[in-house]
């Protein structure tokens, strides 16, 4: 059972991807959603990290999810989800779960005119389509246990560490389900 954080942003696209893969899932909007369901994995979707962060901190979900992540629940963070997991954000003081040893730069590829589509090699999967929307990148890796999975123009755009998998791009926006499959298979 995979829980998808459903406070704001592109959560329904992740739910559709999981549905296509035949994986049971549910939306997490408040603590009751976590009480009602057993949880084997967590997805932090794209959206605005400041909005999702604000809603997290106000709903009491923050501490609960933070504990789950620290206790090793598998978690996939895409775009804003990557920002929520980072221990450091280069161009913002607001920090959230601070669980992954990476420094992230927000909107690193620029505003909407800098958004783009690409096909790049993803370690362990191969070449896949990737949609970058006002996307961040990983500016710095701060621990040897962080494994780089994908680069774009030299910048790190996907990585994993322990129970965490993060991407700058949005695997939920293309029809290619391989990143979700990779998450389900290897975490």
């Amino acid at each position, binding site marked *: 059972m995979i829980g998808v954080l459903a406070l*704001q942003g592109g959560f329904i696209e992740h739910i559709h991807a999981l549905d296509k893969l035949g994986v049971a899932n549910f939306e997490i909007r408040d603590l009751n959603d976590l009480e009602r369901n057993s949880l084997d994995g967590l997805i932090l979707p794209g959206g*605005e990290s400041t*909005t999702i962060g604000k*809603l997290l901190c106000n709903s009491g979900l923050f501490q609960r999810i933070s504990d789950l992540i620290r206790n090793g629940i598998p978690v996939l963070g895409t775009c804003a989800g990557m920002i929520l997991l980072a221990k450091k954000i280069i161009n913002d003081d607001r920090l959230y779960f601070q669980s992954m040893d990476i420094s992230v730069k927000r909107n690193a590829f*620029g505003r*909407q005119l800098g958004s783009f589509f690409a096909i790049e090699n993803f370690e362990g999967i191969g070449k896949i389509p990737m949609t970058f*929307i006002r996307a961040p990148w990983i500016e710095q890796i701060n621990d040897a246990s962080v494994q780089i999975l994908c680069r774009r123009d030299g910048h790190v755009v996907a990585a994993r560490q322990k129970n965490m998998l993060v991407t700058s791009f949005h695997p939920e926006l293309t029809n290619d389900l391989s990143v979700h499959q990779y998450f389900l298979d290897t975490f």
Partner: protein
Amino acid sequence: MNERYELNKNLAQMLKGGVIMDVTSPEQACIAENAGACAVMALERIPADIRAAGGVSRMSDPKMIREIQQAVSIPVMAKVRIGHFVEAQILEAIEIDYIDESEVLSPADDIYHIDKTKFRVPFVCGAKDLGEALRRISEGASMIRTKGEPGTGDIIQAVRHMRIMMSQIRQIQNQREDELFQTAKELQVSCELVQYVHQNGKLPVVNFAAGGVATPADAALMMQLGAEGVFVGSGIFKSGNPAKRAEAIVKSVTNFNNPGLIAQLSEDLGEAMVGINEQEIDLLMAERGK
């Protein structure tokens, strides 16, 4: 064009479940961002003041828009007059994240909308029914919002527009395939767009509510009627306690099906914007641009 259009629709997808707030200064933009807005609309005067001031209202000063771009990290939108493609070129030049070709400003063209397919930057447009929405989409809009009636604090028109749009969508879903051609003719749109609605039961782009949202309950009402997010114009910065009201509306949009929580959010918000009933206004902005 096609890839760019997909990316522009994708940005709207990331705004879903969020609140886009009108702001007139960097300070207001920061209040909006801190309250949890997923984007801001930069403009010199909010709709209620445009309505009060009368006269011709135009695109805002690019310098003021740039200051807001520098003040916040969330996407920044700005309005151009209907049909004024040079105002749109200017906003594209300063790398705006979304252009609202808006009936709130005085129209520059009473026949033609902007050919939005000629731009790399995305457009959101207002609509009062499905025909208007699909016509804007065929011109290249990558996001739609109801028109409602801006600057009134009266939700009735946004409700009317969302109900019309959703009921037309449901009707098309239930039609036989051979009836879709006639529907396309009646709506003055292409068969492909009508077929998309028939198969998917939704617009091919994200659809927000706008025009008259003043309270957390208004925002939740629009979400329950089928909006995927909400624009709030005058409702926040014309109210007694903008920061608190903004935050309450953001939470209400996320938890639109949780009346217990919305009850709490609605407490002690201070004065709502005064509001004007639809019978009391001379100028119906929603009648601009069909």
